[in-house]
């Protein structure tokens, strides 16, 4: 697996819920992922957003963001996920994948780890394409005002 656990979490947080749940359902059906139990039922709540402003280098609280968090045990590994918005299904699916990745090895789960890697790479590519399009749109509005004599 070429992604770190944190990178996987980050990419999974951008994955469409449907893609995540379908993939996890497949892993559960074929028995690759087993012994899953909920440690913390999916919970919708908020995360306080703190920003350090550049003038006095002071922290202040801008507000909160709506998130959903879930924790599961996959075998002896703890899986965790947090997603923005109200998304309990996505959070549980991502937590299961986090826990499964933590206890998987290329020797035992090569095929399904490759499938996960494909999903992650597709998500990265999609994100990157979207970001690139937006950047192109934004930079098309770059401007240099001229001073009138």
């Amino acid at each position, binding site marked *: 697996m070429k992604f770190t656990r944190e990178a996987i979490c*980050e990419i999974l947080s951008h994955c469409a819920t449907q893609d995540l749940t379908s993939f996890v359902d497949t892993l559960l059906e074929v028995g690759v992922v087993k012994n899953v139990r909920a440690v913390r039922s999916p919970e919708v*709540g908020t995360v306080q957003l703190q*920003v350090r402003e550049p003038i006095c280098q002071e*922290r*202040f609280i*801008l507000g909160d*963001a*709506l*998130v959903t968090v879930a924790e599961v045990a996959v075998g002896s590994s703890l899986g965790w996920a947090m997603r923005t918005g109200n998304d309990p299904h996505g959070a549980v699916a991502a937590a299961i994948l986090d826990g499964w990745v933590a206890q998987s090895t290329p020797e035992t789960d090569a095929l399904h780890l490759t499938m996960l890697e494909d999903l992650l790479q597709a998500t990265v590519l999609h994100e990157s394409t979207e970001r690139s399009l937006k950047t192109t749109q934004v930079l*098309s509005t770059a401007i240099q005002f001229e001073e009138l004599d």
Partner: protein
Amino acid sequence: MGYAAARGGLAAIEFAENLVQELRDGHPSSPLETDQVTGRLRLLVDRVMGEAGLWAPELAAQALRQAEGDVIEAVHLLRAFKSTLPRIGISEVVDADDMIPERRIVPAFREPGGPQILGRSTDYTARMLSTTRRETKPKVQPASGTPADEPLDVIPPMQRMSDVLRDMQLLVDRRRTDDSEPFDITRMPAKPPAPRSARLSTMARAETGALVGQWYRNILGPDGYLHEVTLGEVRHGAMPITVTHPVTRNPVKIGEYRVTEVEAIEDLDGIDEDRALFDIGYGLCFGQNERKAIAMANLDIACHRDDQRSELEQSILMTTDGLDSSGFLEHLKLPHYVTFRSMIERKIAVRQARLQSAPTESKP
């Protein structure tokens, strides 16, 4: 101030609420989906999230739909919902420089460090009401005058105006080395004198119109704080939401939120100020809400310069929250029968006392 409760009329209250619901949801037009609201009324959704202090576009859209487009009512719904939620955690502290900009304007300098980008804006075009609906697909055309050799997929680094002025040794250095905990206005009301973090949080959550009004009064109104206003930076872009993974203890980015950021340059000219330097006020709020962020930055520096000499800080902290002010205003519509009856009785009592104490006219 005391109020006596009134009761009764429950059926009428329920019918009134049902009337709102039925006429709204039963309108013969197509149902309003939340993605239409988030996609086509983006600035309205941004404003509701900002004034509610909660980044939740879907919920804000639902609140606006339920409130029939009433911003304050939508903010009320969103804050009420937020109050039922647990606070699951605190984000990693994000540096303002972590923003991925989608718009950047530097009114102070023609050639700032990095490009000026208009982004999604109608600032420079005439306001013409379009009476026909246009179905357009996004098209990207480089603006005339854009350097052709500039790569179009990477936003070049942008040096912020405060850093430009620092490099020129023209800026008061107010950078702090301590890292004090920020004031949480959702847990405790902020009263003057308050730490700056409380003022910034209050203004970030303030009602946009109230903040603009406060700024306008401060600039041109009876307070007499006329001062030079130059905007250093106006930026809009995406900030990361980063939290700590509970197992690895390493940071994980779980999403983004959009903000508007402003630096307002202040020409120091007070008796106790260094006239060879500038100072800067800071504004940052959810979404694309430039009026609010500009007002916030100007009031931030105005409050700092005022240094408790006037009631400016009190006014910012205690009168700019839309839910506070509208809540107080709207409660006036509720029955005040007992309160008002007691006022009438007092008037009658005063009149009777006056009649009794008046000297009787002597009869000839």
